């Protein structure tokens, strides 16, 4: 007897499709062997990553660590923004950086040059960071309590959108040298992010980039997206970004009842 549909045929294996609420064999392919059975799984493809992400998030909350996941396409200026951020916030609270790139130590070297601890993860053939790797990196870096942890993801507006790392917020960086319709072309990332940094605003006079249109597109994908426009290179409006970070770091450290930053 077929193990799935109960008909008298036996010894076949093949595809079955749901029909009228019951599994029915696709006749051209055949039936399952009599020891075949249906196993309900109902498990998220990302369940393993999400479990590690939850573990990371729990650790960050317990330690008062404010963690952000910085994402963008390659060349939007994530590392430059990060270096400028570190230079301006140094001494306010401890900071640490996890860098994700397919190859090279270049970005981690740029961060370490500021005196801030950084760990480079080379993802090789993989196009995104995952929560398990972040958990290991956090232990290796010995990220301090009541600190800012920035995870700079692989430059890629597609894949990192799906992988929760345990961060408090995804921050997407878009630069005005890209198309103003990127939020529509890559909606997953703009939907997953809470904050968008529009970078390289000093170049606006030289490029064909409609800021109002870009923001309208971004809010069409994510009505709650918070936007900060700045130039990491010239420092224009960087204070708005720094104020947001300082506020979030203070808040994260206060959530932990036994801690709190007195010097903020």
């Amino acid at each position, binding site marked *: 007897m077929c193990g799935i549909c109960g008909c008298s045929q036996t010894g076949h294996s093949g595809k079955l499709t749901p029909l009228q609420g019951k599994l029915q064999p696709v006749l051209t392919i055949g039936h399952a062997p009599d020891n075949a059975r249906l196993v309900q*799984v109902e498990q998220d493809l990302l*369940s393993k990553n999400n479990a590690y992400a939850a573990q990371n998030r729990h650790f960050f909350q317990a330690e008062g660590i404010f963690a952000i996941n910085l994402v963008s396409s390659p060349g939007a200026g994530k590392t430059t923004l990060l270096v400028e951020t570190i230079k301006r916030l140094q001494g306010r609270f401890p900071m640490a950086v996890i860098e994700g790139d397919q190859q090279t130590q270049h970005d981690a070297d740029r961060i370490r040059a500021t005196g801030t601890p950084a760990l480079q993860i080379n993802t090789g053939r993989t196009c995104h960071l995952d929560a398990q790797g972040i958990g290991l990196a956090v232990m290796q870096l010995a990220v301090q309590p009541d600190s800012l942890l920035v995870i700079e993801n692989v430059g890629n507006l597609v894949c990192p959108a799906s992988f929760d790392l345990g961060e408090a917020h995804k921050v997407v960086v878009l630069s005005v040298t890209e198309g103003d319709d990127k939020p529509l072309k890559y909606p997953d990332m703009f939907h997953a992010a809470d904050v968008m940094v529009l970078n390289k605003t000093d170049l606006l006079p030289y490029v064909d980039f409609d800021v109002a249109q870009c923001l309208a597109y971004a809010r069409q994908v994510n009505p709650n997206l918070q936007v900060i426009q700045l130039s990491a290179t010239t420092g224009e409006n960087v204070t708005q970004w720094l104020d947001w970070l300082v506020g979030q770091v203070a808040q994260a450290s206060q959530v932990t009842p036994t801690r709190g930053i007195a010097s903020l």
Partner: protein
Amino acid sequence: MHELSLLENVREILEQHAVSQQFSNVCQVTLAVGQLSCVEPDALRFGFDVVMQGSLAEGAELIITELPGVGHCNQCQQQTDLPTLYAPCQHCASPLVTVLSGTEMKIKDLIVN
């Protein structure tokens, strides 16, 4: 191509279930993929045979069922079809729509022996 990492997760989940539910061969895998999820069904189909090679699901049939995107309009407060993350409300054309479902990607069931 994060579909490859996702398929590696599928293989791991199958291996875990093989131990807990005592089976040694998978003949069919059914995935449910939301219209608003970040995966491309064709890319999953493309990678499936390669990733399952040498595993207990080598040669298994892959079935992908697509789940529709559904949103809640913050303007008119009605439920609306959401074919993309930027689709406006089908009733009042407001762009302020919150996603309710359609971002899922999961293994639904298996046929095993």
